[in-house]
Structures are given as C-alpha cells and as structure tokens.
C-alpha cells in the first residue's frame, strides 16, 4: 500500500492536465466526473493508506527519483509519510472531494466549467505535494504551486478587472512571505547541508544549542513564509480580497487547506522552532494579535464572505497561538476541525449566494430559515463549531489551545485571556451572521434550496463539524508529548462559558434586539471605531500609503525614463539647430546674396574696429 502513496497527488494532476488539454471539448458530465472522480480516487487511496498506517504506525519514506543533482545537493521527488502527513492528506482529499462535488452544482451554469476543474485539481495535486514532500525544496514546489492555483482561481472570473486586481494582490503579498521562506531554505541548506526534513531536523538538534542565533533567524524566515501563506499579520491583507473567487474555491483554498499550509510548515519543522524560544513567542503573539484584529473586523463586515474570510484569519491566528505555546497537537487538531466547519460555512454561504442571485450583503438576506432548511442547519452547526460551543468539534480543539496557552509559564494567562476575548468575539460575530441571515424578515426570495450535489457535501460536513472533535489524530509520534496536567477547574469553566456568553450577547443584540447598541454605534467615538474596524484596522490603507502609492509614483516617474531625458535634450537641441539651418536654405538666390552682403558688412565693420597698430 505504501508504494501507492505516489498515486495520490498523481491522479488529480493527471486529471488536471487532461482537462487542460481537452479544454472545451469534453462534455460537461465527463468534466464533472473527471474532476470529482480524481479527487475521490485520491481520497479513497488516502483512506486505504491511512488504514494501513494506523494498523502499523511506522513513518516511511518513498523516493521516486532524484529531482536534480548539483554538487552535494540532490533533492528528490520523494515523499515522507507519518501521522501529520496523514491528517493533512485526509483533510485535503476528504474535504477537497466534498467541495469538488459541491462545485459541480455551484458552477453548473459557468462557461468555463473545464477550466475551473482543471485549476481545482491542480490545486489539490500541489497541496498534496506540499504536505507529502520529504524535503523542503519539494515542499516549496507545492507551496508555489498552490500559490499559482490560488492566483488563477481568485481571478477565475477575469472579465471583471477587480477580480484580477484581487488575484494579483493575493499573489504579490504571499510572494513577500515566500521570498523570506526561500531565504530561510538557503540558510538552512548552507548551515545544515541538507533540505531533507528529517535529517535536517536531526542535524539542527546536533549543531545548534537552545537559543542560538541561527535557528532563530531560520525560524523567523520560515515564519515569514508561513505568515504570508496563512494570512497572518502583517501579510493578511490579501485574504479578504481573495474572496473575489468562486465560493467553493474560498472554501477549499482560503479556508480549509492552503491557508493552513503555514501552520503545517511550522508544525513540520517544530524541532527547529523548539530551538528558538523567541521565535515561538513571536509565533504566539502574531497568532493572538491576528486573531483579535480579525475578530474585531469580522464583527463589522456586512459581506457574508468577508465575515468568513476574517474569521478564517482569526482562526488561523488561534492555530499560530497553539504552535507558539508548543501545543502542536492542539494546533493541528484545530487545523482539522477548522477545515471541517469553515468549509461547511463557506459552502453554506456559497449555497446562499447561489440561490440568492449573487447577493453578498447579509442585511439584504434575512428569514432564510424556512426557505433553505439544509443550508440553515449547516450554517447553524458550522457557526456553533466556529464559536466553539460545547460538544461541537471546534470546542474540543479551541479548548485545548486555550488550556495549553494558559499553562505557559509567565505569559500564559495573558495569552489565555486574549484568546478568550477572541473566542467571545467569534461567538458574537458568527451568531450575528446566523441571526441576521436566517431569522427576521425575508428581504430577498431564494430561488430554491440546495440540490443533492450541494446537499450531500453540506450534510457530510455537518457531521464532521459535529463529530470531528472526537477524532484522535495520529500525531503522538510526531510531536513532543504535551504536558497532561490540567489547570484549575475554573479556567476550564470560563473557557466553556465564554462562547455561550457570546451566543447570548449575539441573541440579545441581533435577534431579540433587547440590547440596543445603536446609540453607542452612532456616537462619534462609535462611528470612528466602527469605520476603523470595518476597514480592517486601516491596514490596507496604511500599506497603500506606505508601499503601493510610493511605488506607483516612482514607477510613474520611471516610466518617462528621466535618464534618457538628458540625452533627449541633446537630440532636441540638435534638431532645433537643424530646423533653423534648414529653414535658411530657401533656394532663393536673392536671400543668399543678401545674407552674403550682410555678412560682408559685418566683417568689414568688425575689421574696422581693429586698431591699425594691431595689424
């Protein structure tokens, strides 16, 4: 079975290539079968390999061939498989399959049906390569591959130039992080002599001491890549704009899989981060700051997809927080549950948008509970899991993160408190969404509820979002064992009570309207704060001011080639003289004679000025 692992990314890749080559020739049904079937095959293979692995949990390596050979550097096309890989592969192929199935209905009317599935399959292949790679270079190939697919899919509806803008933004901003990551790879290679992850980590543990400078730099550079890909502060600005793509794309790439690649990278190289406690602290604080910033922003948005985008940023912030405090298992666990419930929420919003004539504004929805029952229930379950209400999957993972954050010496309780505030906000904004969209007065009439191809993924994801918390992820051998002692009971009770409090607040604010915030919102301070949060803490504005505007100004200046301007001046002077010289050639003899006479008189006059003695 182990030898089959290479087929998992190969099947979607082949399907993608076939779809690209036979573009617009295949009938729609076949395109759908190919697109969904290839991912389904990958999912089944993953399941079989996973069952084998769980029976005998031995990590193994599969070397297919050598990619290139330069001196003593010979990265292979080779895969490494352990519990962490299995979790990631299951999420990618499992959730990926459901989203593909959902897409067949969502994209049914789209003219570029084949192109859509070609990109989506290519994305799945690249993402699988990313998580299966046994060396960092192959991982980087997958890393860039998913970046390209993300770019292509965000700008999928390219006829609208705003979508192209969003795609470019997503590409360029993540590229900043990727550059840092590439530098990190160079550093690791020059220092440790290999990019193969397992030998490299072993070597790092031999060569470097705890708290050395080099692992810190290497970790921060890798973190740069992770921050870009996972949309954390300060490189998060691309994700809300990336919602320009089709909604299933947002579910697959910008919620469930690609944006968690940064989390995976840090978890995969956790031995390195353990050598650099400062880098771990940075990870934790970036995570916490991002999760709070995004939660406040999500509270103010009115576009359903932007709310979910900011909540994704916020939840990945939680994963970073978990990684930063050394709660590796909890971080990956949250990655998995988040993939379930966020994919569910995105697909639910996709269904709403699909059947509500591409309406994105939640205040123009309302009262959809009766009209779209399947969507309502999936949204309710997804929101409950997102808010981490007890017994949902999100509860188990987020609770673990908070409790382990609390146990960190010194700063732990503060991180816990910050995380708790985030959890409260999460509960408020997710149930604000539910109450505004599904309760109250109906404002737009939906054209129906989901068909089976949308319904089945939603129902299955509902089940996963509810039950995912009971899964035990097989990463015990991958990560160092977390401490098993529990903090005081009140900590746990507060952690449980906070989301419920958030739900209650959301109910009072947005459903029964017993709490009225209008006065507060309409006050001058409230308006300023609201605008500030609505714009995502003005970070886009700031980047625009600091980076984009000076750059466009400079390039506008350079467009006219100021250095060439100098040489242009020489030319212009010559041309002027040439023009006047040419104009003097009238071809009329009388003018020539006249000018000769004039010159003669001038010369004679000058000659007469010379005193006789000088001659």
């Amino acid at each position, binding site marked *: 079975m182990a030898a089959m692992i290479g087929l998992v990314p190969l099947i979607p890749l082949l399907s993608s290539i076939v779809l690209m080559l036979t573009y617009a020739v295949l009938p729609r049904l076949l395109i759908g079968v190919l697109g969904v079937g290839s991912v389904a095959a990958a999912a089944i293979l993953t399941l079989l390999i996973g069952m084998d692995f769980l029976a005998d949990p031995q990590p193994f390596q599969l070397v297919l061939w050598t990619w290139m050979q330069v001196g003593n550097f010979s990265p292979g096309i080779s895969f490494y498989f352990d519990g962490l890989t299995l979790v990631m592969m299951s999420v990618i192929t499992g959730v990926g399959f459901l989203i593909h199935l959902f897409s067949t209905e969502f994209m049914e009317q789209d003219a570029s049906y084949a192109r859509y599935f070609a990109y989506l399959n290519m994305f799945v292949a690249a993402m699988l390569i990313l998580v299966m790679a046994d060396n960092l270079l192959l991982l980087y190939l997958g890393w860039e591959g998913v970046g390209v697919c993300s770019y292509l899919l965000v700008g999928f509806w390219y006829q609208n130039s705003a979508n192209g803008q969003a795609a470019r933004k997503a590409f360029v901003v993540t590229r900043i992080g990727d550059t840092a990551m590439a530098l990190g790879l160079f550093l690791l290679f020059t220092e440790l002599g290999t990019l193969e992850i397992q030998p490299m980590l072993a070597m790092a543990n031999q060569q470097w001491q705890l708290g050395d400078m080099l692992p810190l730099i290497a970790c921060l550079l890798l973190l740069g890549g992770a921050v870009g890909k996972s949309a954390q502060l300060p490189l998060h600005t691309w994700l809300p704009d990336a919602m320009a793509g089709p909604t299933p794309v947002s579910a697959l790439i910008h919620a469930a899989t690609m944006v968690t690649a940064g989390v995976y990278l840090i978890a995969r190289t956790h031995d390195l981060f353990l050598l650099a406690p400062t880098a771990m602290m940075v990870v934790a604080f970036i995570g916490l700051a991002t999760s709070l910033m995004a939660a406040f922003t999500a509270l103010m948005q009115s576009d359903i997809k932007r709310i979910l985008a900011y909540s994704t940023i916020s939840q990945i912030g939680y994963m970073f927080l978990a990684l930063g405090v050394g709660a590796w298992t909890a971080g990956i666990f949250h990655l998995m549950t988040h993939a379930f419930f966020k994919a569910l929420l995105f697909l639910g919003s996709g269904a709403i948008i699909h059947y509500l004539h591409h309406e994105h504004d939640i205040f123009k929805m309302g009262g959809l509970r009766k009209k779209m029952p399947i969507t309502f229930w999936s949204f309710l379950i997804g929101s409950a899991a997102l808010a981490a209400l007890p017994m949902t999957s999100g509860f188990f993972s987020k609770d673990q993160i908070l409790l382990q954050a609390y146990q960190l010496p010194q700063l732990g309780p503060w991180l816990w408190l910050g995380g708790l505030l985030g959890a409260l906000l999460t509960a408020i904004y997710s149930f604000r969404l539910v109450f505004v969209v599904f309760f109250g007065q109906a404002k737009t009439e939906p054209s129906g509820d989901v068909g089976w191809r949308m319904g089945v993924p939603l129902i299955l994801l509902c089940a996963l979002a509810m039950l995912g918390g009971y899964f035990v992820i097989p990463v015990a051998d991958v990560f160092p064992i977390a401490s098993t002692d529990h903090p005081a009971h009140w900590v746990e009770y507060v952690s449980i009570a906070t989301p419920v409090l958030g739900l209650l607040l959301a109910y009072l604010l947005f459903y029964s309207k017993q709490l009225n915030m209008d006065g507060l919102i309409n006050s001058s301070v409230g308006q300023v704060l609201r605008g500030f949060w609505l714009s995502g803490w003005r970070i886009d504005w700031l980047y625009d001011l600091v980076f984009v505007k000076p750059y466009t100004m400079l390039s506008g200046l350079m467009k006219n080639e100021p250095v060439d301007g100098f040489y242009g001046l020489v030319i212009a002077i010559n041309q002027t003289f040439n023009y006047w010289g*040419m104009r*003097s050639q*009238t*071809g*009329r003899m*009388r003018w020539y*004679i006249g000018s000769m*006479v004039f010159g003669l008189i001038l010369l004679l006059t000058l000659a007469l000025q010379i005193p006789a003695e000088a001659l």
Partner: protein
Amino acid sequence: MDGLNIPLNHILLVSTLLFSIGLLGLMIRRNIIFILMSLEVMLNAAALAFVAAGAHWGQPDGQIVFMLILSVAAAEVAVGLGLVLQVQRRFKTLDMDSADRMRG
C-alpha cells in the same frame, strides 16, 4: 593729359557707386536678365577701379587685369545666357525665385 587729371578718389567713388548699384540690383531684381546685367555692372565697376589704379601708378597691370575681366565677363554672359534660356524653357518665366527647388 593735364586737362584729364581726375583725382583717383573720384574715380574710385564712381566705381564704388557702380558696384553698389550692381549689388543692389542683384539683391532686389527678380528677373534673371536684370540680374545678369547687374553682374555686368559690378564687373565693370571693378574693371574701372583697376584701370584707374593702373593709370594712377603708371603701371600696365591695371589694363591687363581689365582685359582679363573683359574676357571673364564675356564667358560669364555666354554661360549666363545659356542658363537664362534653360530657366525660360523649364519654368516658362524669367523669375529667379521660381527656381528654388534646392531649398532645405
């Protein structure tokens, strides 16, 4: 000889006047015949100055140069009249300004 003792300056003044008239004619006339005539006037002005100077210093050189100028003028007229005929044939006019194709 005494009765004809005209000071050199007077002759040179006449010569200068003749030359200026010729030059002025050259500059303002458009008719090519008149231009040629103006040229003749200028040549003769120069010749007059030579003859006068030769007489003044009692040298034969002035008259020799006069002979040279005379032959130059004859040759010039021969060429010039040829040109006049060509201009007339090509442009159907004697206006010198019409032959301005060599402008810049």
